[in-house]
């Protein structure tokens, strides 16, 4: 069936303080544009007819247009979707992503391709409802999106979007951590950290010593970032339906100290007081202390001792499992 797919490529991802305090990489925007081009090749191959894209400034759109208009030979003959850049006004803020996702939901896209980090994906997940996401990482410090070749990932998203791949077993329901405080509700896709930092400041949470408690929705043993703490203690697979709650302590006072890859280029000791699994739906109250709550590695909420806050594991966005799509569709073709 003819399908339209949305594309969100965050031009502003990867500019936080981790470039100063750790070895975080800089992901070039021309490469983001090239990734969209390659994803479009895969989407077109699967029969997707139209791509709705958030206006992409800072070289993303320029690189994409250059590659689209410069197609020669086999590339010129291959089917490509029509590119429609959304007409929204660009503000250069996170609001651009929210507005674009809302438009994509209204236009009933069959899938959304997201290029960005955990923060970008969190924003999309909060507004996309049940539309399946193709989560692609544009950096080295992410847990939710994967580092993948965009051509094949685009093909997989296209096969799901057109219905050529069965949704069963190829689109998985992720879990997220819902934080509730003072009537405000936020969803984290990977982790929630309780930090003693008083202010949101430059947002990225980069001082591990400031974290007193950590909730992790999933953590592989090879994760990087705060979730790597859980990945070492008790790995939780995606979609397992349980979260891990870790209480930390200064390494000198902790029951156990583990060395954790907290950021690209930064491996540091982390003291662990205890940890336990949390079932889906179980509500855990956070300790009453002044500080910040960080969602997916970014300080988001400043709170005082008087502010009550809770965390619970809830159903999150639906994510396209690229390997599963390719396995099933290729098996069907042979």
């Amino acid at each position: 069936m003819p399908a339209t797919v949305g594309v969100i490529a965050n031009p502003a991802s990867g500019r936080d303080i981790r470039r100063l305090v750790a070895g975080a990489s800089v992901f070039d925007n021309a490469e983001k544009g090239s990734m969209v081009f390659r994803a479009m090749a895969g989407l077109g191959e699967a029969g997707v007819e139209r791509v709705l894209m958030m206006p992409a400034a800072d070289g993303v759109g320029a690189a994409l247009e250059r590659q689209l208009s410069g197609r020669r030979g086999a590339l010129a003959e291959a089917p490509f979707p029509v590119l429609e850049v959304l007409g929204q006004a660009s503000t250069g803020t996170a609001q651009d992503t929210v507005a674009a996702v809302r438009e994509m939901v209204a236009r009933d896209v069959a899938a959304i391709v997201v290029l960005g980090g955990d923060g970008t994906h969190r924003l999309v997940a909060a507004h996309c409802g049940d539309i399946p996401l193709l989560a692609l990482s544009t950096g080295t410090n992410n847990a939710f999106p994967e580092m993948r070749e965009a051509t094949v990932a685009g093909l997989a998203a296209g096969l799901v979007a057109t219905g050529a791949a069965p949704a069963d077993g190829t689109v998985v329901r992720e879990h997220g951590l819902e934080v509730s405080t003072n009537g405000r509700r936020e969803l984290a896709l990977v982790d929630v950290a309780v930090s003693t930092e008083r202010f949101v400041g430059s947002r990225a949470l980069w001082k591990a010593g400031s974290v007193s408690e950590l909730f992790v929705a999933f953590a592989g043993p090879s994760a990087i970032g705060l979730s790597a703490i859980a990945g070492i203690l008790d790995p939780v697979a995606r979609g397992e339906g349980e979260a891990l709650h870790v209480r930390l302590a200064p390494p000198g006072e902790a029951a156990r100290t583990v060395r954790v890859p907290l950021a690209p280029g930064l491996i540091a000791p982390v003291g662990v007081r205890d940890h336990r699994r949390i079932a889906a739906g179980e509500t855990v109250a956070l300790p009453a202390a002044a500080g910040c709550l960080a969602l997916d590695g970014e300080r988001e909420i400043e709170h005082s001792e008087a502010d009550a806050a809770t965390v619970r594991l809830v159903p999150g966005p639906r994510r396209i499992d690229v390997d599963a799509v390719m396995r099933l569709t290729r098996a069907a073709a042979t």
Partner: protein
Amino acid sequence: MSTAAAPGTGELTKEDMLEHYRVMRTIREFEERLHREFATGEIPGFVHLYAGEEAIAAGVCAHLGPDDYVASTHRGHGHAIAKGCGVKAMMAEIYGKKTGLCHGKGGSMHIADLDKGMLGANGIVGGGPPLVCGVGLSAKVRGTDQVGVSFTGDGGSNQGTFLESLNLASVWDAPCVFVVENNGYAEATSSTYHQKGVDVAKRADGFGMPGIVVDGHDFFAVHEAAGEAIRRARSGGGPTLLECKVNRYFGHFEGDQQTYRAPDEVESIRATRDCLDQFVKRVTSAGLAEQPDLDKIDAEVAELLDSAVAEAKAGPDPTGEDLLTDVYVRY
């Protein structure tokens, strides 16, 4: 105005909070007052006001000592105040009086005080960055831990001088921090029109230095990021480009009709993002300061500005002989 190095976020004390507030409130009051006084026609020359951008000057300069240098822009009052220049002498300078910081010969756009490490406001757009390359080279050659910080606008970031300075500081591994105050307009031209792309910080990539973006309305964001960039420069880690996204409350210059801005643009920013309002709300709810302490500072600052304006108006004009002083420097 104390400019002693402040401890990093996480070790913030009440004294620090009150000092940062005093710096920001002094800049705001200075600029609001100039906005009113300029309308009377008594002030010679042009003035370009910094109101709205206070968190940047305060957040950056909190990490600098008197031996560190800043190079400013034509919108330089905030940088001068945050770097410790005397408010009364600054006001007298803007009124063109002999009692001014530069004996009335510099005016708003050339306020300088080398003793405070303030290399000057600068009438040349993009004029500051090359100066701090010199600061960086000098500190490196002499083996000191001094740092040079330049401030540039989004318009200035299109100048060759700015881009050449990024290259020079990078190849020298110079202890420099290039702060871009991206207020969205180069004079009357929107940055969406004068620049391809949203983030000036990305230009750092081409010069092999880190480029990061923070909210210039948020004192704590600027303070934290500038602290790390300055620490990095001081310890031999090389230069950083720090872009602060911000808005100015007044026109490019006083008298600018601002027909290029939406009618309610400034009002909505003042209502929702003001750096002083945010700061007050957050430090009081965090229990790091109490409203009466802040009110007391407001009163002291208002009094300081009243007497600064009165003394500036009453001050003596430079004489004919003054034209021949401070023309050449022996070195």
